[in-house]
């Protein structure tokens, strides 16, 4: 009923005025009536709604920045974590020469000895 009254009142007051200006006054009154109390509580002094919200996001983004440079040592120790060489525990004594060798592997010394004999037996390395 109040809205109806406001629409009627300008027409009664000045019937010769343009319709555009009449609509403008109508909207401004509506706007101020509805949103002014809410805005005054959230951001006092700022009458525009959207820039206030954006400003909050902007501030939080700028705050998430590394405080210090990550040192070379810190970076390397982080990236090389879990990549250290493993201990070789599977060792035994070679039955052929008595040297220490890895289990389930041919002894390198003995392999060299074998190759010496093969070189004597098959000197031309062109197959046989």
């Amino acid at each position: 009923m109040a809205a109806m009254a406001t629409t009627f009142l300008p027409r009664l007051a000045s019937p010769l005025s343009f319709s555009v200006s009449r609509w403008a006054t109508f909207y401004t009154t509506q706007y101020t009536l509805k949103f002014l109390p809410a805005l005054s509580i959230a951001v006092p002094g700022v009458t525009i709604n959207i820039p206030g919200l954006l400003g909050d996001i902007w501030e939080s983004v700028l705050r998430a920045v590394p405080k210090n440079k990550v040192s070379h040592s810190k970076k390397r120790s982080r990236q090389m974590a879990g990549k250290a060489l493993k201990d070789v525990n599977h060792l035994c004594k070679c039955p052929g020469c008595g040297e220490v060798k890895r289990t389930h592997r041919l002894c390198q010394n003995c392999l060299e000895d074998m190759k010496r004999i093969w070189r004597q037996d098959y000197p031309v390395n062109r197959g046989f």
Partner: protein
Amino acid sequence: MAGGLVKYRHLSRKSSARQALLRGLVTQLVQYEHIQTTYAKAKETQRLAEKLITLAKRNNEPCRRSAQGILYTPNLLMPKLFGELRNRYLTREGGYTRVVRTEPKNTYDQGESAILEFVDGKKDSRFMMTAKTLARDRLLGRSSTPVTLQNVKKVTKFRDEKELEEMVQRFMILSTEGEGALEAQSAESAKLAEKEGAAAEILAGDIVPESAKSGEQVKR
């Protein structure tokens, strides 16, 4: 392996490159009877090599054709494959090749290496290793372990025992020669190394059993 079930190692190659690689390796294997590559390549070549020997044993026209398709130098190696290798494996039911892991061949990438060889071939590492172990046991005057005796049995199953005996003798000569060379080197610094020698004898005492030790002293 990543990517689910695979029936063979792809060796980081497309089909044609992999096939070429395996053909090359198997050709070299037939030629030299003993090749050293990475473990993965050795295991994949082993499959092809076993199939090739099966073809040679079957020895009919289609088999000869497909064997010719595998070998890169068929005119050189076909006579060997269908002669020597065929006769060698005629009585053996599978298991013609052996893959033995070795120390890394490539010192740069330290990749897992292995030797692929023909069982009972001219360059059989287990035969050589058994002979060397027997030679060492005899020189130290101790009895062979059950594992060595088992290996002797395996090695001489399709092969003459005389061959093994000859190889044992050769290894004994080789090791005594090596010792002689070492003695000549150490003669100059004998006085300095006396203490070290004593320590070495103590170490050797751990390896040699008591009975063998007494035998050695008698020999000296």
